[in-house]
């Protein structure tokens, strides 16, 4: 009785009684987390180091004078301007197409959706050269030729060539091996990335916003324009900048579909290729640095104004 001073319900008494009949519990010691973090950090930093090393090597190889000298060349100035212009145009067209596709794919379920989803990913997984070759073949078919013809007619009708001549650009005669082919080649790949980003963007915007807007008297287009689109702005910025960056780096499809004609279809990656092929490594690296700076600006813009989560 002396070991149960607090009555029959005293739990302390029960525990002490149990401890005499069962073996004592072995205290388990959890090992250190140090190896886990060490391995993960070493692996992570090794890749980070590779990226930084690449940039440092480029920067060490070139100088502001080299970049300035590169800009003295009117061919490089042209390719820079063409790259900036074509990337802006192709990313704008990509957005124009990616917003409706992303919205429809995000909001509606229909037969064959998985198939369409797969088709939309083809430009991402296909080798770039194959895309260029496919574009070239497409514009040799009857359909492609009629497209080419129609485009030329439209260009003549709206007087685009006289406008281009005013800014010192050669007139356009069709699509293949002409300026529009550069934009089309860039768009073909960049749009796929923009579509993916826009789909994720719309997935992240609750359908309930549209539901509420519909009950407030909106038509579908009004709900989209006034409620969904403002919510999607960070995603649109991300999709646009991503498409722009992809377009800037596009080389294979442009080389095949547009050629590498100086002062005509030469973009910055083509310049790097042409300068390397004639052995002018300094100019090639200087042009590369221009693209690195442009890519950094785009990345910065996305980080500040775009989606907080990764979409690709």
């Amino acid at each position, binding site marked *: 009785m002396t070991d149960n001073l607090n009555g029959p319900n005293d739990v302390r008494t029960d525990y002490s009684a149990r401890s005499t009949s069962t073996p004592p519990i072995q205290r388990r010691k959890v090992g250190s987390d140090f190896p886990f973090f060490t391995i993960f950090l070493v692996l992570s930093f090794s890749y980070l180091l590779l990226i930084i090393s690449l940039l440092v090597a480029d920067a060490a190889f070139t100088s502001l004078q080299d970049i300035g000298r590169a800009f003295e060349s009117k061919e490089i100035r042209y390719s820079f301007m063409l790259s900036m212009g074509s990337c802006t145009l192709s990313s704008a067209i990509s957005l124009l197409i990616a917003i409706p596709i992303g919205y429809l794919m995000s909001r509606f379920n229909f037969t064959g959706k998985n198939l369409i989803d797969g088709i939309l990913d083809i430009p991402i997984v296909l080798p770039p050269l194959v895309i260029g070759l496919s574009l070239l073949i497409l514009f040799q078919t009857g359909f492609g030729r009629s497209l080419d013809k129609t485009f030329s007619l439209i260009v003549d009708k709206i007087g685009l060539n006289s406008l281009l001549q005013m800014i010192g650009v050669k007139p356009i005669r069709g699509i293949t091996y002409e300026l529009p082919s550069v934009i089309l080649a860039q768009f073909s790949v960049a749009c796929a990335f923009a579509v993916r980003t826009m789909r994720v963007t719309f997935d992240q915007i*609750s359908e*309930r*916003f549209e*539901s*509420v*807007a*519909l*009950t*407030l*008297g*909106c*038509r579908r287009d*009004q709900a989209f324009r*006034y*409620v969904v689109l*403002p*919510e999607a*702005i960070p995603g649109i910025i991300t999709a646009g900048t991503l498409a722009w960056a992809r377009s800037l780096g596009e080389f294979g499809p442009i080389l095949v579909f547009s050629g590498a004609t100086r002062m005509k279809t030469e973009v910055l990656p083509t310049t790097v290729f042409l300068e390397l092929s004639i052995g002018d490594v300094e100019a090639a690296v200087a042009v590369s640095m221009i693209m690195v700076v442009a890519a950094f600006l785009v990345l910065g813009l996305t980080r500040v104004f775009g989606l907080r989560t990764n979409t690709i």
Partner: protein
Amino acid sequence: MIEVVNLTIQQGDFSITNVGFTVPEGTYGVLMGSTGSGKTSILEAICGLRPIVSGRILLTSVDVSHAKSADRNIGYVPQEGVLFQKMTVRQHLAFALKIRKWDNHQIQQRIDELAELLGIGHLLHRRPKRLSGGERQRVALGRALSFKPDVLLLDEPLCSLDDEVRHQMCNLLKYVQQDQGTTSLHVTHNTSEAVRLADYLFRLVEGKVVEFSPLTESHEGEETSFNRLEKE
């Protein structure tokens, strides 16, 4: 008046068949049911956000069973408000009015009325991110009432609020309903909320709507609908 007649809704494996109830003109109806019982589906069907298989939905005696949401003239307060993140409170109150092309003077007048009614005058320039749970629901209520809808439909509007704010919001909902005279249907699983607000109380049990109405005040020792409900 809200009339739901032999309504059948099907979504995947889930279905509700032949449910019906009526909320008379100018009264406050509460539809109760456990989570997953289908009460939100019924409310969404009345809103026009969910297709129906059969049956009829009549609002102010007009058959709106297959009408678009926008044509039903309903005020909808969803769970947790669902405020538009990029809009200020003022823009929320003006949104439905701009869609209906009210002139600026009328819009301003209506915003002032709603701000006073709901006590949100000091919040007009804020965006949803800077509002508390109770404030969000007030704004959602104001947005739903802005265009003077025929009926007000509320989907668990107080579920994420603490007890004190819930109590305040219950008083506000009752006051607003009496002030505006809007026929209302409020979906909830909270018994005390239902007891406080309902003129007519419906309960969704195993796919059937059971009506406890009209509700009378509980006298000492008397078994009323409310008493029975609270015991359950």
